[in-house]
């Protein structure tokens, strides 16, 4: 590999990040938001979203691409929270209860997801995406019809007036920001939810440690080449299932953290955007389908949310319609996922071709330039 880093190449490898910085910088001025406000919002959103984005890392290491099936974990979390509210368990106790109650469910859902994805090797991402839609149906069936009828949920505050099914919006007052307020530190004009950040830091340490374990190494081997891993005695399918299970459980905990910060929960919609925002964030941060690091996660969360903070106001000011900013947000989110996937697929094809032509040239003219990278 040549050490030369030309401008063109630098741009190509960081195209997504560069485009994001430019759009955000352009939008700050017309948005009319103060820098203090933007930074405070960013701190809040980092505490809220980082955990969910970190949940994506392990499946990427295991070569399964972006885990769109993480939505399953989010659904488990919401069921846990519904029970916490039902039994009226407040504060951090409520959060701990929600996590403990939903973890077995998340493990079970992750196991199913892993099995399904193993049956669809090579198209994990699209399958995971559809699986999330499918499970959305099951979730709705469970929450809208079984809760309160077959599943004992008593609290009239959360049941629909017909006697069964959970209301559209749940008030999470009992656990609202209980993690954030556990250790809120004021630094100048900013308040920092240290406890939330400590949880995120703990997860980062876990991931760094996990990568060094035997299982973590196996996972990377599977991600690198399934056949080689298989012939060296690594149980490929099992390792992939474990990666998805861990990711689903982390997504579940992440969703609890996310919702305690939001303070209320759209019972039937809160989980639908989870994977979309997390995937967009990690891709904006420079990750690809096959490669991701902790840095990608945090860069991505900052960049994506900086843009999300400023665009609605900028849309309002420039076009006179806040709706445009909202659509623009969605367009950018989906667009960036598409763009990163395209760039990655394109680049890996080019590299494959480059390597092949390099081989060919070496056989005919050994002195010819352009050997495999």
């Amino acid at each position: 590999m040549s050490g030369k880093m030309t401008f063109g190449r630098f741009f190509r490898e960081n195209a997504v990040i560069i485009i994001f910085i430019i759009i955000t910088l352009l939008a700050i001025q017309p948005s009319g938001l103060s820098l203090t406000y933007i930074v405070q919002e960013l701190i809040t959103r980092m505490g809220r979203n980082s955990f969910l984005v970190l949940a994506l890392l392990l499946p990427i290491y295991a070569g399964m691409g972006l885990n769109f099936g993480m939505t399953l974990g989010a659904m488990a979390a919401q069921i846990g929270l519904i029970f916490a509210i039902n039994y009226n368990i407040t504060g951090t106790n409520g959060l701990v209860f929600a996590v403990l109650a939903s973890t077995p469910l998340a493990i079970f859902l992750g196991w199913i997801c892993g099995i399904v994805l193993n049956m669809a090797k090579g198209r994990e991402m699209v399958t995971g995406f559809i699986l999330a839609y499918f499970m959305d149906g099951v979730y709705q069936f469970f929450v809208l019809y079984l809760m309160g009828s077959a599943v004992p949920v008593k609290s009239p505050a959360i049941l629909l007036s017909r006697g069964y099914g959970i209301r559209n919006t749940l008030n999470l007052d009992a656990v609202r920001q209980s993690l954030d307020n556990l250790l809120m530190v004021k630094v100048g004009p900013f308040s920092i939810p240290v406890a939330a950040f400590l949880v995120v830091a703990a997860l980062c340490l876990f991931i760094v440690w996990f990568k060094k374990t035997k299982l973590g190494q196996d996972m990377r081997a599977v991600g690198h080449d399934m056949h080689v891993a298989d012939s060296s005695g690594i149980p490929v399918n099992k390792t992939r299932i474990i990666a998805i299970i861990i990711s689903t459980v982390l997504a579940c905990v992440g969703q609890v953290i996310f919702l305690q910060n939001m303070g209320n929960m759209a019972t039937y919609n809160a989980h639908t955007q989870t994977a979309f925002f997390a995937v967009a964030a990690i891709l904006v941060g420079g990750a690809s389908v096959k490669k991701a690091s902790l840095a990608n996660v945090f860069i991505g969360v900052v960049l994506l949310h900086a843009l999300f903070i400023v665009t609605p106001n900028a849309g309002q000011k420039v076009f006179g319609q806040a709706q445009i900013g909202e659509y623009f947000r969605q367009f950018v989110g989906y667009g960036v996922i598409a763009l990163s996937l395209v760039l990655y697929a394109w680049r890996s094809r080019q590299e494959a071709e480059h390597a092949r032509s390099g081989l060919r040239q070496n056989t005919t003219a050994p002195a010819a330039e352009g050997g495999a990278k």
Partner: protein
Amino acid sequence: MRSFKQIVTDFGWPRIIIFFFLVLLFFAAPLVQVSVLASFSDVFNRFGQNAIFVLALVPMIQSGCGLNFGLSLGILAGLLGATLSIQVGLSGAAGFFGAIVLASPFAVLFGGAYGKLLNKVKGEEMTIAMYVGFAAVFFMSIMWLLLPYTAADMVWGFAGKGLRTTISVERYWLHILNDFLAIRIGDSFIFPTGEILFVGAAAFFMWLFLRAKTGTAMTAVGSNPDYARAGGISVDKMRTISVVISTFLGAVGIIVYEQSFGFIQLYGAPMAMPFAAIAAILIGGASVNKASMVNVLVGTFLFQGLLTMTPSVINSALNSDMSEVVRLIVSNGIIIYALTRKTKVTK
């Protein structure tokens, strides 16, 4: 006995279950005071509304591009055509066919670019198509607000600009196909002859096309690209052609849908449409890399039958609206089933 088992495996359990479930619904309908005649009328109507979308998936499946999760691009082209035809004040048959003509350049443009893109990302088409489709839907959402449409029937009355979320086509080309030679029996049964004829003609032309030179080459590219290239077929060109045709049919599909449904739906509406079409063709027996006209017609009929019958029968029986849940589970379940099946053709 073995041959029966073979037939069952070939057809697939999910399809058999859905088929019998639908039959059961038709038998159960009279018991819960749902008119079977009206139900049949609905099913035929919705079959015609949606069949073109499902047909649009065939070329890309055949050329090896997989399921067209980016069908929304074609739908957006169709929406442009439909709104433009109202903007210039076309009505009646001229309005309907005018909309198709006006949509065509956009469909060719979008399809061409989209096809070129998919050629660069072979093997990852489906995920990328999905996100390209989503991004395009929201890009066009911004455009619906900004484009200088002026027809009073379409823009927000208050601001005088920006298109409405739903636009009625009643004064332009409502039921232009449905009412053509329509057969009425009693009050509740209307057979939309024109619409069904249109679908039939489209399916027939697709059938012919797949047997013509270009169509055969396309199928060859789909079943074995290397072999096709060795035979002197340009793989990329065939794939692009298939994407353009698919996008164009998506555009025609939405216009046919609108003339029957009565409204043009803009903004977020096209997002979910590709999924319904994909579920339908898969229920009909297509796989990720093989589809036929029978798959299209049977699949659309079964899927739309299910969507029509479940709400009416189950709601009357249980007094609650489970249709959304049933729709989510059935349509996505069948897509997962198709994606997880081992493909018999080795790639």
